[in-house]
């Protein structure tokens, strides 16, 4: 007995189209929103010349990137060079469909998701990890050592954070006992949001998601101020735009996945309106990530890897083991609530505790 009714195929196709079009539109306008917000964070105005409030800026950008000269480098592997950005963007688009936006039947009588897989979470990760192929092939096919180095940097950091990311996700999955995203949301509707049960996992996941989307503290793949371009040095025109698109879609997917996994998805303890809360939660995380980009610095490459392997991964592992212990011994789940609270208090304490930075060596 499947609690989630299936849609006819034409409806699935229609919804898939809707998701693709929606994501591409969202990408276009997220570039504008991000630029405007960053500008306001820096007390500037941001792009406001094209159309009212600069609303046509994405269209102008699209026209520009399509009509720019599309170079294929002489020494590039022609097929892979063209294929790499497509791989990236296709797999980025595939991931979003599994995220539920409302209760069953709330999309004009159909289901508010494209895919409902029992291994939804696993599918999501399998698919979004394919983006690394796009990045790596792009660097390799460019026939340039700098692109290759850039792609190695990107893939190394993405793979490092993938471990922490997956490990952080294991604890909610263990608690709910399902990889189905709908089950995860429904469990949270019954028992309360997973952030209460797995606060450390939420925090680690949010950090790792920043790294996965190559956002600011971890945006080394294309550290704008330091590098020419990283893995897409040799790319221009629409192919370059496709890489940007991939990155933004990962960013949007991450912002949609965090609420789904930890903040109750489309549910809300009060005032249940389908879609509204989901969109608000997505918007909140998008804003948060832009805010972080406007504020924080970029980690150095060794710091990035050390943070991933030396902090993120072990802490996620410990929290996973704690959750596993609670589940295995069938202890009351409220233990996890207390432990989460303790972790939250520890974080607050760490924020209050600010020692004078120790000066090492004779640095000025």
């Amino acid at each position, binding site marked *: 007995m499947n609690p989630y009714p299936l849609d006819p195929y034409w409806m699935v196709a229609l919804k898939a189209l809707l998701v693709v079009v929606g994501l591409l539109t969202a990408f276009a306008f997220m570039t504008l929103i991000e630029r405007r917000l960053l500008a*306001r964070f820096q*007390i500037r*105005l941001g792009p406001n010349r094209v159309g009212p409030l600069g609303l046509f800026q994405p269209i102008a950008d699209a026209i520009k990137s399509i009509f720019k000269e599309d170079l294929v480098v002489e020494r590039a592997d022609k097929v892979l060079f063209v294929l790499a950005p497509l791989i990236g963007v296709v797999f980025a688009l595939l991931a979003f469909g599994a995220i539920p936006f409302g209760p069953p039947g709330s999309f004009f009588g159909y289901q508010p998701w494209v895919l409902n897989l029992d291994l939804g979470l696993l599918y999501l990760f399998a698919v979004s990890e394919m983006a690394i192929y796009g990045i790596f092939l792009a660097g390799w096919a460019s026939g340039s050592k700098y692109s290759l180095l850039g792609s190695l940097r990107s893939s190394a950091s993405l793979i490092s954070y993938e471990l922490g990311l997956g490990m952080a996700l294991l604890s909610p999955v263990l608690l709910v006992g399902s990889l189905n995203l709908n089950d995860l949301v429904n469990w949270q509707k019954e028992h309360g949001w997973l952030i209460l049960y797995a606060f450390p996992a939420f925090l680690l996941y949010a950090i790792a998601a920043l790294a996965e989307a190559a956002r600011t503290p971890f945006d080394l793949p294309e550290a704008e101020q330091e590098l020419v371009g990283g893995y897409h040095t040799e790319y221009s025109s629409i192919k370059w735009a496709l890489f940007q698109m991939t990155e933004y879609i990962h960013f949007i997917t991450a912002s949609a996945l965090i609420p789904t996994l930890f903040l109750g998805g489309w549910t809300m303890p009060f005032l249940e309106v389908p879609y509204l809360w989901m969109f608000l939660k997505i918007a909140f995380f998008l804003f948060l990530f832009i*805010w972080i980009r406007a*504020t924080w610095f970029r980690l150095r490459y060794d710091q990035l890897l050390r943070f991933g392997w030396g902090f993120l991964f072990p802490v996620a592992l410990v929290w996973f083991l704690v959750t596993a212990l609670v589940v295995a011994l069938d202890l009351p789940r409220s233990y996890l609530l207390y432990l989460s609270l303790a972790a939250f208090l520890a974080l607050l304490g760490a*924020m209050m505790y600010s*020692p004078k930075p120790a000066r090492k060596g004779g640095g000025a």
Partner: protein
Amino acid sequence: MTLKALAQSLGITLKYLFSKPVTIPYPDAPVALKPRFHGRHVLTRHPNGLEKCIGCSLCAAACPAYAIYVEPAENDPENPVSAGERYAKVYEINMLRCIFCGLCEEACPTGAIVLGYDFEMADYEYSDLIYGKEDMLVDVVGTKPQRREAKITGKPVKPGYVVPYVRPELEGFKAPTKGGKK
């Protein structure tokens, strides 16, 4: 670097998010200039309407860029143009050469030439950047391209600046003022 500092920094940027941008959207909004801005030159007049310039060419001598050309002529005693014996029949400044240093203003014995505020002088022809008396006397509003455009569109010249007050040396010069004292 501590967590506290990271959290505080988020607070700082959030505060800036809600503060007014410092950007001046220039062609849409005027630039606020200082009263002593060095812009297009103004040839001032005495209160009785006579030109202050006596055609002495001291400005041309002082000009480090050799941008000024003065051709003096004797005043008609019945109908004088300037307050002195002679007046400037031709007074030209090549705005492409001028470096807006203000030495002409310092050299002028009668305070006839004063640097004003107009700066939007970009034009298409070299010859249009040589400003004559008819482009610089106090009653003239705007620069050559601005006045040309005003003539075509029929709208008044719209200067791209505001000043807190017009400095007294620019006797009789009208400039859009806003804020500031006096």
